[in-house]
Protein backbone atom coordinates (compact mmCIF):
# COMPACT_ATOMS: atom_id res chain seq x y z
CA UNK A 1 0.00 0.00 0.00
CA UNK A 2 1.45 3.32 -0.99
CA UNK A 3 1.37 6.29 1.29
CA UNK A 4 -0.12 9.29 -0.43
CA UNK A 5 1.69 12.55 -0.08
CA UNK A 6 0.08 14.77 2.54
CA UNK A 7 -2.19 17.34 0.97
CA UNK A 8 -2.27 20.94 2.07
CA UNK A 9 -4.79 21.43 4.86
CA UNK A 10 -8.11 22.29 3.31
CA UNK A 11 -10.40 21.69 6.24
CA UNK A 12 -10.55 22.72 9.83
CA UNK A 13 -8.38 21.08 12.46
CA UNK A 14 -9.78 17.99 14.15
CA UNK A 15 -11.82 15.14 12.80
CA UNK A 16 -14.24 15.54 9.92
CA UNK A 17 -15.69 12.21 8.97
CA UNK A 18 -18.49 10.48 7.24
CA UNK A 19 -17.87 6.83 7.93
CA UNK A 20 -19.62 4.34 5.69
CA UNK A 21 -18.94 0.66 6.22
CA UNK A 22 -21.17 -1.81 4.41
CA UNK A 23 -20.76 -5.40 5.49
CA UNK A 24 -23.90 -6.88 3.97
CA UNK A 25 -25.64 -7.83 7.19
CA UNK A 26 -24.72 -4.56 8.85
CA UNK A 27 -24.22 -1.08 7.54
CA UNK A 28 -22.72 1.88 9.30
CA UNK A 29 -23.24 5.41 8.05
CA UNK A 30 -22.35 8.07 10.57
CA UNK A 31 -21.05 11.60 10.41
CA UNK A 32 -18.63 12.71 13.10
CA UNK A 33 -16.88 15.96 13.82
CA UNK A 34 -14.66 16.87 16.70
CA UNK A 35 -12.25 19.74 17.30
CA UNK A 36 -8.82 19.47 18.92
CA UNK A 37 -9.07 19.44 22.69
CA UNK A 38 -12.55 17.98 22.50
CA UNK A 39 -13.65 14.61 23.84
CA UNK A 40 -16.38 13.06 21.73
CA UNK A 41 -18.24 10.03 23.06
CA UNK A 42 -19.94 7.56 20.77
CA UNK A 43 -22.77 6.22 22.85
CA UNK A 44 -25.08 3.43 21.82
CA UNK A 45 -26.41 -0.03 22.64
CA UNK A 46 -24.42 -3.17 21.85
CA UNK A 47 -24.28 -3.85 18.13
CA UNK A 48 -25.02 -0.23 17.23
CA UNK A 49 -21.76 0.07 15.29
CA UNK A 50 -19.73 2.08 17.78
CA UNK A 51 -16.72 -0.21 17.66
CA UNK A 52 -16.92 -0.46 13.88
CA UNK A 53 -16.82 3.35 13.73
CA UNK A 54 -13.80 3.38 16.00
CA UNK A 55 -12.01 0.73 13.93
CA UNK A 56 -12.79 2.73 10.80
CA UNK A 57 -11.23 5.83 12.35
CA UNK A 58 -8.11 3.81 13.17
CA UNK A 59 -7.99 2.34 9.67
CA UNK A 60 -8.45 -1.21 10.95
CA UNK A 61 -11.74 -1.56 9.10
CA UNK A 62 -11.72 -0.05 5.60
CA UNK A 63 -14.42 2.41 4.62
CA UNK A 64 -16.67 1.44 1.74
CA UNK A 65 -17.66 5.04 1.19
CA UNK A 66 -17.48 8.45 2.77
CA UNK A 67 -14.40 10.35 3.82
CA UNK A 68 -12.22 10.81 6.84
CA UNK A 69 -9.94 13.75 7.44
CA UNK A 70 -7.83 14.61 10.43
CA UNK A 71 -6.40 18.11 10.90
CA UNK A 72 -7.20 18.85 7.28
CA UNK A 73 -5.39 15.81 5.89
CA UNK A 74 -7.58 13.24 4.18
CA UNK A 75 -6.82 9.82 5.67
CA UNK A 76 -9.33 7.85 3.70
CA UNK A 77 -11.68 8.43 0.80
CA UNK A 78 -12.72 5.32 -1.12
CA UNK A 79 -14.15 7.34 -4.02
CA UNK A 80 -10.71 8.87 -4.58
CA UNK A 81 -9.03 5.49 -3.94
CA UNK A 82 -7.22 7.09 -1.08
CA UNK A 83 -6.31 5.27 2.08
CA UNK A 84 -3.57 5.91 4.60
CA UNK A 85 -2.79 2.60 6.31
CA UNK A 86 -3.20 2.36 10.07
CA UNK A 87 0.53 2.50 10.81
CA UNK A 88 0.86 5.86 9.06
CA UNK A 89 -2.08 7.52 10.80
CA UNK A 90 -1.32 9.78 13.76
CA UNK A 91 -3.76 7.75 15.82
CA UNK A 92 -3.53 6.11 19.23
CA UNK A 93 -5.91 3.42 20.41
CA UNK A 94 -6.78 2.13 23.87
CA UNK A 95 -8.42 -1.20 23.17
CA UNK A 96 -11.22 -2.63 25.25
CA UNK A 97 -9.02 -5.40 26.66
CA UNK A 98 -5.94 -3.18 26.25
CA UNK A 99 -3.95 -5.69 24.14
CA UNK A 100 -0.73 -4.96 25.97
CA UNK A 101 2.01 -7.07 24.40
CA UNK A 102 2.39 -9.93 26.87
CA UNK A 103 6.06 -10.55 26.09
CA UNK A 104 7.13 -6.96 26.79
CA UNK A 105 7.45 -5.10 30.07
CA UNK A 106 5.16 -2.15 30.81
CA UNK A 107 8.03 0.14 29.86
CA UNK A 108 8.69 -1.58 26.53
CA UNK A 109 4.97 -1.60 25.77
CA UNK A 110 4.91 2.18 26.14
CA UNK A 111 8.19 2.51 24.23
CA UNK A 112 6.88 0.42 21.32
CA UNK A 113 5.17 3.25 19.46
CA UNK A 114 8.15 5.54 20.02
CA UNK A 115 10.57 2.97 18.59
CA UNK A 116 8.48 2.40 15.45
CA UNK A 117 8.48 6.15 14.94
CA UNK A 118 12.24 6.20 14.80
CA UNK A 119 13.42 6.88 18.33
CA UNK A 120 16.52 5.02 19.50
CA UNK A 121 16.05 2.40 22.16
CA UNK A 122 17.47 4.50 25.00
CA UNK A 123 15.52 7.62 24.01
CA UNK A 124 12.32 5.66 23.61
CA UNK A 125 12.73 4.07 27.01
CA UNK A 126 13.46 7.39 28.71
CA UNK A 127 10.37 8.91 27.12
CA UNK A 128 8.30 5.84 28.02
CA UNK A 129 9.48 6.05 31.63
CA UNK A 130 8.30 9.65 31.68
CA UNK A 131 4.86 8.54 30.47
CA UNK A 132 4.63 5.76 33.04
CA UNK A 133 5.41 8.35 35.68
CA UNK A 134 2.61 10.55 34.39
CA UNK A 135 0.09 7.74 34.82
CA UNK A 136 1.55 6.93 38.23
CA UNK A 137 3.15 3.63 37.34
CA UNK A 138 6.85 4.44 37.49
CA UNK A 139 7.28 1.58 39.98
CA UNK A 140 5.83 -0.95 37.56
CA UNK A 141 8.07 -0.24 34.57
CA UNK A 142 9.60 -3.72 34.61
CA UNK A 143 6.31 -5.56 35.20
CA UNK A 144 4.87 -7.83 32.54
CA UNK A 145 1.22 -7.08 31.65
CA UNK A 146 -0.01 -10.24 33.34
CA UNK A 147 1.35 -8.98 36.65
CA UNK A 148 -0.65 -5.74 36.42
CA UNK A 149 -4.12 -5.18 37.85
CA UNK A 150 -6.94 -4.18 35.49
CA UNK A 151 -6.67 -0.52 36.44
CA UNK A 152 -2.89 -0.53 36.03
CA UNK A 153 -3.12 -2.25 32.65
CA UNK A 154 -5.60 0.38 31.53
CA UNK A 155 -3.18 3.14 32.50
CA UNK A 156 -0.28 1.45 30.71
CA UNK A 157 -2.50 1.13 27.64
CA UNK A 158 -3.34 4.83 27.88
CA UNK A 159 0.34 5.76 28.25
CA UNK A 160 1.22 3.54 25.30
CA UNK A 161 -1.42 5.21 23.13
CA UNK A 162 -0.46 8.75 24.19
CA UNK A 163 3.33 8.40 24.06
CA UNK A 164 3.68 8.83 20.26
CA UNK A 165 1.63 12.06 20.56
CA UNK A 166 -1.32 11.08 18.36
CA UNK A 167 -3.60 13.69 16.85
CA UNK A 168 -6.55 11.38 17.43
CA UNK A 169 -6.93 9.23 20.52
CA UNK A 170 -9.47 6.42 20.35
CA UNK A 171 -10.76 4.66 23.44
CA UNK A 172 -12.89 1.54 23.06
CA UNK A 173 -15.02 0.94 26.17
CA UNK A 174 -12.05 1.89 28.34
CA UNK A 175 -13.81 1.02 31.61
CA UNK A 176 -15.69 -2.11 30.71
CA UNK A 177 -13.01 -4.55 31.86
CA UNK A 178 -12.81 -2.99 35.33
CA UNK A 179 -14.74 -3.74 38.48
CA UNK A 180 -17.04 -1.06 39.90
CA UNK A 181 -14.62 0.15 42.56
CA UNK A 182 -11.64 0.52 40.21
CA UNK A 183 -13.87 2.12 37.64
CA UNK A 184 -14.54 5.18 39.77
CA UNK A 185 -10.84 5.72 40.30
CA UNK A 186 -9.83 5.12 36.72
CA UNK A 187 -12.63 7.30 35.38
CA UNK A 188 -11.40 10.25 37.43
CA UNK A 189 -7.81 9.71 36.25
CA UNK A 190 -8.86 9.27 32.66
CA UNK A 191 -10.82 12.50 32.87
CA UNK A 192 -7.66 14.29 34.02
CA UNK A 193 -5.54 12.84 31.23
CA UNK A 194 -8.15 13.65 28.63
CA UNK A 195 -8.34 17.21 29.90
CA UNK A 196 -4.57 17.53 29.35
CA UNK A 197 -4.80 16.04 25.87
CA UNK A 198 -4.73 18.75 23.22
CA UNK A 199 -5.88 16.72 20.20
CA UNK A 200 -9.15 14.94 19.45
CA UNK A 201 -10.28 12.08 21.68
CA UNK A 202 -13.08 9.75 20.65
CA UNK A 203 -14.49 7.47 23.29
CA UNK A 204 -16.76 4.53 22.58
CA UNK A 205 -19.02 3.46 25.41
CA UNK A 206 -22.40 2.02 26.25
CA UNK A 207 -22.21 3.44 29.75
CA UNK A 208 -24.00 6.80 29.86
CA UNK A 209 -22.15 7.77 33.03
CA UNK A 210 -18.75 7.35 31.34
CA UNK A 211 -20.03 9.39 28.43
CA UNK A 212 -21.48 12.16 30.60
CA UNK A 213 -18.43 12.41 32.84
CA UNK A 214 -15.71 12.13 30.21
CA UNK A 215 -17.10 13.68 27.07
CA UNK A 216 -17.64 17.24 25.94
CA UNK A 217 -20.06 16.11 23.28
CA UNK A 218 -22.00 12.94 22.60
CA UNK A 219 -22.97 11.26 19.40
CA UNK A 220 -25.62 8.62 19.96
CA UNK A 221 -25.54 5.75 17.48
CA UNK A 222 -28.28 3.17 17.01
CA UNK A 223 -28.43 0.60 14.24
CA UNK A 224 -25.45 2.13 12.47
CA UNK A 225 -26.97 5.62 12.29
CA UNK A 226 -26.57 8.77 14.35
CA UNK A 227 -29.77 9.40 16.25
CA UNK A 228 -28.62 12.36 18.26
CA UNK A 229 -25.67 14.65 18.70
CA UNK A 230 -25.03 17.31 21.31
CA UNK A 231 -23.62 18.16 24.71
CA UNK A 232 -24.28 15.71 27.56
CA UNK A 233 -26.60 18.20 29.27
CA UNK A 234 -28.52 18.81 26.09
CA UNK A 235 -28.97 15.12 25.41
CA UNK A 236 -29.95 14.36 28.98
CA UNK A 237 -32.66 17.02 28.83
CA UNK A 238 -33.92 16.33 25.33
CA UNK A 239 -33.50 12.68 24.38
CA UNK A 240 -34.58 11.79 20.88
CA UNK A 241 -34.81 8.04 21.15
CA UNK A 242 -36.08 5.47 23.62
CA UNK A 243 -32.54 4.24 24.16
CA UNK A 244 -31.28 7.63 25.25
CA UNK A 245 -34.42 8.29 27.28
CA UNK A 246 -33.92 5.05 29.19
CA UNK A 247 -30.27 5.88 29.72
CA UNK A 248 -31.01 9.25 31.23
CA UNK A 249 -34.12 7.96 33.00
CA UNK A 250 -36.88 9.85 31.21
CA UNK A 251 -40.26 8.86 29.87
CA UNK A 252 -40.13 9.84 26.22
CA UNK A 253 -42.91 10.07 23.63
CA UNK A 254 -43.35 11.42 20.13
CA UNK A 255 -46.43 13.30 19.17
CA UNK A 256 -48.08 16.21 17.45
CA UNK A 257 -48.15 19.43 19.44
CA UNK A 258 -50.86 22.04 19.41
CA UNK A 259 -49.98 24.74 21.88
CA UNK A 260 -49.23 22.95 25.16
CA UNK A 261 -51.14 19.80 24.25
CA UNK A 262 -49.27 16.93 22.64
CA UNK A 263 -51.31 14.20 20.98
CA UNK A 264 -49.05 11.16 21.38
CA UNK A 265 -48.31 8.90 18.41
CA UNK A 266 -49.74 5.41 18.70
CA UNK A 267 -51.55 6.11 21.94
CA UNK A 268 -55.00 7.43 22.79
CA UNK A 269 -53.55 10.04 25.06
CA UNK A 270 -52.83 13.72 25.26
CA UNK A 271 -49.95 15.05 27.32
CA UNK A 272 -50.01 18.64 28.51
CA UNK A 273 -46.54 20.09 28.69
CA UNK A 274 -44.93 23.26 29.99
CA UNK A 275 -43.95 24.50 26.53
CA UNK A 276 -46.02 25.56 23.54
CA UNK A 277 -45.17 24.16 20.13
CA UNK A 278 -46.92 23.20 16.97
CA UNK A 279 -46.08 20.20 14.80
CA UNK A 280 -44.11 17.04 15.57
CA UNK A 281 -42.40 17.10 18.95
CA UNK A 282 -40.79 14.92 21.58
CA UNK A 283 -42.41 15.03 24.99
CA UNK A 284 -40.67 13.83 28.12
CA UNK A 285 -41.02 13.72 31.89
CA UNK A 286 -38.90 12.06 34.58
CA UNK A 287 -40.18 8.98 36.45
CA UNK A 288 -40.02 10.97 39.69
CA UNK A 289 -42.68 13.39 38.37
CA UNK A 290 -45.30 10.65 38.38
CA UNK A 291 -47.69 10.43 41.34
CA UNK A 292 -49.99 7.46 41.93
CA UNK A 293 -53.44 7.43 43.48
CA UNK A 294 -55.79 4.66 44.58
CA UNK A 295 -58.86 6.75 43.63
CA UNK A 296 -59.27 9.29 40.88
CA UNK A 297 -57.87 12.51 42.41
CA UNK A 298 -60.02 15.66 42.31
CA UNK A 299 -57.15 18.14 41.94
CA UNK A 300 -56.05 20.10 38.94
CA UNK A 301 -53.64 17.56 37.37
CA UNK A 302 -54.47 17.57 33.65
CA UNK A 303 -52.27 14.59 32.85
CA UNK A 304 -54.21 11.79 34.47
CA UNK A 305 -54.56 8.21 33.30
CA UNK A 306 -55.81 4.91 34.70
CA UNK A 307 -52.90 2.43 34.60
CA UNK A 308 -52.04 -1.14 35.56
CA UNK A 309 -48.83 -2.05 37.40
CA UNK A 310 -46.89 -4.39 35.14
CA UNK A 311 -43.69 -4.73 37.10
CA UNK A 312 -41.83 -3.34 40.07
CA UNK A 313 -38.17 -3.40 41.04
CA UNK A 314 -35.96 -1.69 43.54
CA UNK A 315 -33.93 1.06 41.90
CA UNK A 316 -31.63 2.77 44.38
CA UNK A 317 -33.80 3.78 47.32
CA UNK A 318 -36.85 4.08 45.06
CA UNK A 319 -39.18 1.51 43.58
CA UNK A 320 -39.33 1.69 39.81
CA UNK A 321 -42.74 0.80 38.42
CA UNK A 322 -43.54 -0.29 34.92
CA UNK A 323 -47.07 1.02 34.21
CA UNK A 324 -49.32 0.14 31.28
CA UNK A 325 -52.36 2.10 30.19
CA UNK A 326 -53.17 4.71 27.59
CA UNK A 327 -49.41 5.21 27.42
CA UNK A 328 -46.46 3.26 28.84
CA UNK A 329 -44.99 5.01 31.88
CA UNK A 330 -42.00 4.43 34.10
CA UNK A 331 -42.53 5.81 37.59
CA UNK A 332 -40.27 6.04 40.64
CA UNK A 333 -41.96 6.12 44.04
CA UNK A 334 -40.81 5.47 47.59
CA UNK A 335 -41.16 2.01 49.17
CA UNK A 336 -43.39 3.69 51.77
CA UNK A 337 -45.77 4.83 49.02
CA UNK A 338 -45.82 1.32 47.58
CA UNK A 339 -46.87 -0.05 50.98
CA UNK A 340 -49.41 2.70 51.55
CA UNK A 341 -51.05 2.11 48.18
CA UNK A 342 -50.81 -1.65 48.63
CA UNK A 343 -49.28 -1.99 45.19
CA UNK A 344 -48.54 -5.33 43.56
CA UNK A 345 -48.26 -6.51 40.00
CA UNK A 346 -51.68 -6.14 38.41
CA UNK A 347 -52.81 -3.30 40.70
CA UNK A 348 -54.99 -0.71 38.98
CA UNK A 349 -54.25 2.87 39.97
CA UNK A 350 -54.38 6.42 38.64
CA UNK A 351 -51.15 8.05 37.44
CA UNK A 352 -50.81 11.82 37.39
CA UNK A 353 -48.11 14.11 36.01
CA UNK A 354 -48.06 17.87 36.53
CA UNK A 355 -47.94 19.80 33.29
CA UNK A 356 -45.03 21.85 34.60
CA UNK A 357 -42.95 18.66 34.95
CA UNK A 358 -43.50 17.56 31.34
CA UNK A 359 -41.45 19.13 28.58
CA UNK A 360 -41.80 19.17 24.83
CA UNK A 361 -39.27 20.06 22.14
CA UNK A 362 -39.39 19.95 18.35
CA UNK A 363 -38.68 16.54 16.81
Amino acid at each position, binding site marked *: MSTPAPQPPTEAAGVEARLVVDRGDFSLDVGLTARPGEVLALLGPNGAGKTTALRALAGLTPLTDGRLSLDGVVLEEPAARLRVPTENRPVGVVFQDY*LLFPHLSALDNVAFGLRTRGLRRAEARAEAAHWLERVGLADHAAARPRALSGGQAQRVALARALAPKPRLLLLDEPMSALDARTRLDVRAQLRRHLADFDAVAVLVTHDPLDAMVLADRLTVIEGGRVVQHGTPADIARHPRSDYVARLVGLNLYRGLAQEQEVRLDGAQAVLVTAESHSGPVFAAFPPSAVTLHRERPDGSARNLWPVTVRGMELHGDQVRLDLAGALPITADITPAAVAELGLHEGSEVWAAVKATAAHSYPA
Partner: protein
Amino acid sequence: MTSNTTAPAGGGSQRTAPGPARVRRLARRGGGVPVVLLVPALLGLAFLVLPLIGLLVKAPWSSMPSELDGGTVWPALRLSLETATAATAVSLLLGVPLAWLLARTEFPGRRFLRTLVTLPLVMPPVVGGVALLLVFGRNGLVGEWLNSAFGITLPFTTAGVVVAEAFVAMPFLVLSVEGALRGSDSRYEEAAATLGASRFTAFRRVTLPLVAPGIGAGAVLAWARALGEFGATITFAGDFPGTTQTMPLAVYLALENDPDAAIALSVVLLIVSVLVLAGLRGRWTGGAA
Protein backbone atom coordinates in the same frame (compact mmCIF):
# COMPACT_ATOMS: atom_id res chain seq x y z
CA MET B 1 -1.00 -25.53 33.87
CA THR B 2 -3.30 -25.61 36.86
CA SER B 3 -4.61 -29.10 37.28
CA ASN B 4 -7.33 -27.96 39.66
CA THR B 5 -9.39 -26.72 36.76
CA THR B 6 -9.72 -30.28 35.46
CA ALA B 7 -11.29 -31.55 38.66
CA PRO B 8 -13.87 -34.24 37.98
CA ALA B 9 -17.56 -33.54 38.45
CA GLY B 10 -19.42 -34.67 41.52
CA GLY B 11 -18.99 -34.59 45.25
CA GLY B 12 -19.38 -31.67 47.60
CA SER B 13 -15.85 -32.34 48.80
CA GLN B 14 -14.74 -30.18 45.87
CA ARG B 15 -14.83 -27.11 48.14
CA THR B 16 -11.86 -28.32 50.13
CA ALA B 17 -9.83 -27.94 46.93
CA PRO B 18 -8.20 -31.35 46.70
CA GLY B 19 -4.61 -31.50 45.53
CA PRO B 20 -3.92 -32.55 41.94
CA ALA B 21 -2.84 -36.05 42.96
CA ARG B 22 -6.03 -36.71 44.82
CA VAL B 23 -8.13 -35.45 41.95
CA ARG B 24 -6.42 -37.84 39.61
CA ARG B 25 -7.01 -40.78 41.92
CA LEU B 26 -10.67 -39.90 42.23
CA ALA B 27 -10.99 -39.70 38.48
CA ARG B 28 -9.40 -43.07 38.03
CA ARG B 29 -11.52 -44.79 40.61
CA GLY B 30 -14.69 -43.10 39.36
CA GLY B 31 -14.91 -44.72 35.93
CA GLY B 32 -13.84 -48.31 35.35
CA VAL B 33 -12.06 -48.94 32.04
CA PRO B 34 -13.98 -51.44 29.86
CA VAL B 35 -12.00 -54.58 29.05
CA VAL B 36 -12.78 -54.16 25.35
CA LEU B 37 -10.73 -50.99 25.42
CA LEU B 38 -8.16 -52.00 28.00
CA VAL B 39 -6.86 -55.11 26.22
CA PRO B 40 -6.15 -53.50 22.82
CA ALA B 41 -4.76 -50.46 24.62
CA LEU B 42 -2.24 -52.58 26.52
CA LEU B 43 -1.40 -54.54 23.37
CA GLY B 44 -0.80 -51.31 21.55
CA LEU B 45 1.43 -50.08 24.33
CA ALA B 46 3.44 -53.32 24.27
CA PHE B 47 3.74 -53.12 20.51
CA LEU B 48 5.26 -49.65 20.75
CA VAL B 49 7.50 -50.26 23.74
CA LEU B 50 8.72 -53.85 23.21
CA PRO B 51 10.98 -53.11 20.21
CA LEU B 52 12.67 -50.37 22.22
CA ILE B 53 13.21 -52.76 25.12
CA GLY B 54 14.46 -55.39 22.66
CA LEU B 55 16.96 -52.94 21.31
CA LEU B 56 18.27 -52.16 24.78
CA VAL B 57 18.33 -55.82 25.85
CA LYS B 58 20.07 -57.06 22.73
CA ALA B 59 22.55 -54.21 22.63
CA PRO B 60 26.13 -55.50 22.90
CA TRP B 61 26.84 -53.27 25.88
CA SER B 62 30.24 -54.80 26.65
CA SER B 63 31.58 -54.40 23.12
CA MET B 64 29.78 -51.11 22.58
CA PRO B 65 32.86 -48.87 22.72
CA SER B 66 34.69 -50.95 20.12
CA GLU B 67 31.60 -51.19 17.91
CA LEU B 68 31.24 -47.43 17.92
CA ASP B 69 34.92 -46.97 17.31
CA GLY B 70 34.71 -48.46 13.82
CA GLY B 71 35.49 -45.24 12.01
CA THR B 72 32.14 -44.87 10.24
CA VAL B 73 30.04 -44.08 13.31
CA TRP B 74 31.32 -40.70 14.38
CA PRO B 75 31.53 -39.20 10.88
CA ALA B 76 27.98 -40.49 10.23
CA LEU B 77 26.68 -39.11 13.53
CA ARG B 78 28.38 -35.79 12.96
CA LEU B 79 27.04 -35.58 9.43
CA SER B 80 23.55 -36.44 10.70
CA LEU B 81 23.61 -33.77 13.38
CA GLU B 82 25.00 -31.17 10.98
CA THR B 83 22.64 -31.86 8.11
CA ALA B 84 19.59 -32.12 10.39
CA THR B 85 20.49 -28.78 11.93
CA ALA B 86 21.06 -27.21 8.51
CA ALA B 87 17.76 -28.65 7.25
CA THR B 88 16.00 -27.20 10.30
CA ALA B 89 17.59 -23.82 9.62
CA VAL B 90 16.37 -23.94 6.01
CA SER B 91 12.92 -24.98 7.23
CA LEU B 92 12.80 -22.08 9.69
CA LEU B 93 13.95 -19.58 7.11
CA LEU B 94 11.37 -20.61 4.52
CA GLY B 95 8.76 -22.34 6.65
CA VAL B 96 7.92 -19.58 9.16
CA PRO B 97 7.06 -17.03 6.45
CA LEU B 98 5.10 -19.73 4.61
CA ALA B 99 3.16 -20.53 7.78
CA TRP B 100 2.46 -16.81 8.25
CA LEU B 101 1.18 -16.60 4.69
CA LEU B 102 -1.14 -19.55 5.25
CA ALA B 103 -2.40 -18.33 8.63
CA ARG B 104 -2.68 -14.58 8.19
CA THR B 105 -3.61 -13.88 4.61
CA GLU B 106 -6.61 -14.75 2.50
CA PHE B 107 -6.17 -15.51 -1.17
CA PRO B 108 -7.79 -17.83 -3.69
CA GLY B 109 -6.36 -21.33 -3.56
CA ARG B 110 -5.05 -20.95 -0.02
CA ARG B 111 -6.63 -24.20 1.12
CA PHE B 112 -5.24 -26.04 -1.87
CA LEU B 113 -1.80 -24.62 -1.16
CA ARG B 114 -2.07 -25.81 2.42
CA THR B 115 -2.82 -29.33 1.20
CA LEU B 116 0.23 -29.18 -1.08
CA VAL B 117 2.40 -28.13 1.83
CA THR B 118 1.29 -31.10 3.89
CA LEU B 119 1.75 -33.56 1.04
CA PRO B 120 5.37 -34.44 1.93
CA LEU B 121 4.02 -35.56 5.31
CA VAL B 122 2.05 -38.41 3.80
CA MET B 123 4.13 -39.06 0.67
CA PRO B 124 6.58 -41.98 0.82
CA PRO B 125 10.01 -40.37 1.33
CA VAL B 126 11.47 -42.41 -1.53
CA VAL B 127 8.96 -40.80 -3.88
CA GLY B 128 10.11 -37.47 -2.52
CA GLY B 129 13.69 -38.43 -3.34
CA VAL B 130 12.77 -39.36 -6.89
CA ALA B 131 10.85 -36.10 -7.29
CA LEU B 132 13.83 -34.14 -5.98
CA LEU B 133 16.08 -35.90 -8.49
CA LEU B 134 13.75 -34.92 -11.32
CA VAL B 135 13.85 -31.27 -10.26
CA PHE B 136 17.35 -30.80 -8.86
CA GLY B 137 19.13 -33.57 -10.78
CA ARG B 138 21.80 -32.75 -13.34
CA ASN B 139 19.15 -32.70 -16.07
CA GLY B 140 16.30 -31.60 -13.81
CA LEU B 141 14.08 -28.57 -14.20
CA VAL B 142 16.06 -26.45 -11.79
CA GLY B 143 19.18 -28.56 -11.51
CA GLU B 144 20.25 -28.01 -15.10
CA TRP B 145 20.04 -24.27 -14.67
CA LEU B 146 21.81 -24.39 -11.28
CA ASN B 147 24.58 -26.38 -12.91
CA SER B 148 25.02 -24.20 -15.98
CA ALA B 149 24.60 -20.87 -14.19
CA PHE B 150 26.45 -21.49 -10.94
CA GLY B 151 28.15 -24.84 -11.41
CA ILE B 152 26.13 -26.20 -8.48
CA THR B 153 25.07 -29.82 -8.37
CA LEU B 154 22.98 -31.02 -5.50
CA PRO B 155 22.45 -34.78 -5.95
CA PHE B 156 24.91 -37.01 -4.12
CA THR B 157 26.41 -34.13 -2.14
CA THR B 158 26.12 -33.09 1.50
CA ALA B 159 24.00 -30.14 0.35
CA GLY B 160 21.76 -32.71 -1.31
CA VAL B 161 21.28 -34.43 2.04
CA VAL B 162 20.17 -31.11 3.53
CA VAL B 163 17.74 -30.57 0.64
CA ALA B 164 16.24 -34.04 1.03
CA GLU B 165 15.90 -33.66 4.80
CA ALA B 166 14.41 -30.17 4.56
CA PHE B 167 11.89 -31.45 2.02
CA VAL B 168 10.45 -34.01 4.42
CA ALA B 169 10.93 -32.01 7.61
CA MET B 170 9.63 -28.55 6.68
CA PRO B 171 5.92 -29.50 6.63
CA PHE B 172 6.16 -30.40 10.34
CA LEU B 173 7.45 -26.94 11.07
CA VAL B 174 4.95 -25.18 8.81
CA LEU B 175 1.99 -26.96 10.37
CA SER B 176 3.22 -26.37 13.89
CA VAL B 177 3.86 -22.67 13.32
CA GLU B 178 0.63 -22.18 11.39
CA GLY B 179 -1.28 -23.71 14.30
CA ALA B 180 0.50 -21.42 16.74
CA LEU B 181 -0.27 -18.40 14.56
CA ARG B 182 -3.94 -19.29 14.31
CA GLY B 183 -4.05 -19.75 18.05
CA SER B 184 -2.48 -16.36 18.76
CA ASP B 185 -4.64 -13.25 18.81
CA SER B 186 -4.16 -11.34 15.56
CA ARG B 187 -5.45 -8.23 17.28
CA TYR B 188 -2.01 -7.80 18.83
CA GLU B 189 -0.86 -7.10 15.29
CA GLU B 190 -3.62 -4.52 14.95
CA ALA B 191 -2.48 -2.93 18.20
CA ALA B 192 1.06 -2.82 16.80
CA ALA B 193 -0.24 -1.17 13.61
CA THR B 194 -1.94 1.57 15.63
CA LEU B 195 1.47 2.16 17.22
CA GLY B 196 3.03 2.77 13.84
CA ALA B 197 4.40 -0.69 13.15
CA SER B 198 4.40 -1.86 9.53
CA ARG B 199 3.17 -5.38 8.94
CA PHE B 200 6.72 -6.69 8.91
CA THR B 201 7.70 -4.82 12.07
CA ALA B 202 4.59 -6.17 13.78
CA PHE B 203 5.54 -9.67 12.61
CA ARG B 204 9.10 -9.32 13.87
CA ARG B 205 8.46 -7.58 17.16
CA VAL B 206 5.06 -8.93 18.19
CA THR B 207 3.98 -12.02 16.28
CA LEU B 208 7.29 -13.89 16.33
CA PRO B 209 7.83 -13.57 20.09
CA LEU B 210 4.22 -14.58 20.74
CA VAL B 211 4.45 -17.76 18.67
CA ALA B 212 8.03 -18.57 19.69
CA PRO B 213 6.94 -21.68 21.65
CA GLY B 214 5.18 -23.00 18.53
CA ILE B 215 8.22 -22.26 16.40
CA GLY B 216 10.46 -24.02 18.92
CA ALA B 217 8.25 -27.10 19.01
CA GLY B 218 8.03 -27.13 15.21
CA ALA B 219 11.80 -26.78 14.90
CA VAL B 220 12.41 -29.73 17.24
CA LEU B 221 9.90 -31.87 15.36
CA ALA B 222 11.51 -30.93 12.06
CA TRP B 223 14.98 -31.59 13.41
CA ALA B 224 13.97 -35.04 14.70
CA ARG B 225 12.32 -35.88 11.39
CA ALA B 226 15.42 -34.73 9.50
CA LEU B 227 17.69 -36.74 11.77
CA GLY B 228 15.82 -39.95 10.99
CA GLU B 229 15.42 -39.27 7.28
CA PHE B 230 16.29 -42.28 5.14
CA GLY B 231 14.25 -42.74 1.96
CA ALA B 232 14.57 -39.35 0.33
CA THR B 233 18.20 -39.04 1.41
CA ILE B 234 19.40 -42.33 -0.03
CA THR B 235 17.45 -41.72 -3.24
CA PHE B 236 18.57 -38.15 -3.80
CA ALA B 237 21.96 -38.02 -2.11
CA GLY B 238 23.14 -41.61 -2.17
CA ASP B 239 25.27 -43.31 0.45
CA PHE B 240 28.81 -42.00 0.44
CA PRO B 241 30.58 -42.31 3.80
CA GLY B 242 31.72 -38.91 5.01
CA THR B 243 29.64 -36.84 2.60
CA THR B 244 26.14 -38.30 2.42
CA GLN B 245 26.07 -41.32 4.71
CA THR B 246 23.94 -40.21 7.65
CA MET B 247 23.25 -42.34 10.73
CA PRO B 248 20.09 -44.07 9.44
CA LEU B 249 21.95 -45.02 6.27
CA ALA B 250 24.89 -46.27 8.29
CA VAL B 251 22.56 -48.36 10.45
CA TYR B 252 20.92 -49.93 7.45
CA LEU B 253 24.24 -50.69 5.78
CA ALA B 254 25.79 -52.11 8.94
CA LEU B 255 22.83 -54.41 9.45
CA GLU B 256 23.90 -56.44 6.38
CA ASN B 257 27.45 -57.27 7.44
CA ASP B 258 27.76 -56.29 11.10
CA PRO B 259 24.43 -56.55 13.04
CA ASP B 260 26.08 -55.70 16.36
CA ALA B 261 27.35 -52.41 14.96
CA ALA B 262 23.86 -51.68 13.61
CA ILE B 263 22.38 -52.23 17.07
CA ALA B 264 25.00 -50.02 18.68
CA LEU B 265 24.30 -47.26 16.15
CA SER B 266 20.57 -47.64 16.75
CA VAL B 267 21.05 -47.23 20.48
CA VAL B 268 22.94 -44.01 19.86
CA LEU B 269 20.10 -42.68 17.67
CA LEU B 270 17.56 -43.78 20.28
CA ILE B 271 19.41 -41.85 22.97
CA VAL B 272 19.47 -38.75 20.76
CA SER B 273 15.70 -39.11 20.21
CA VAL B 274 15.00 -39.45 23.92
CA LEU B 275 17.09 -36.36 24.60
CA VAL B 276 15.12 -34.44 21.98
CA LEU B 277 11.83 -35.60 23.46
CA ALA B 278 12.93 -34.58 26.93
CA GLY B 279 13.93 -31.15 25.66
CA LEU B 280 10.64 -30.81 23.77
CA ARG B 281 8.51 -31.70 26.78
CA GLY B 282 10.40 -29.65 29.27
CA ARG B 283 10.90 -26.46 27.36
CA TRP B 284 8.19 -26.17 24.77
CA THR B 285 5.12 -28.31 25.21
CA GLY B 286 5.07 -27.42 28.87
CA GLY B 287 5.20 -23.70 28.13
CA ALA B 288 2.70 -23.85 25.30
CA ALA B 289 0.08 -25.90 27.13
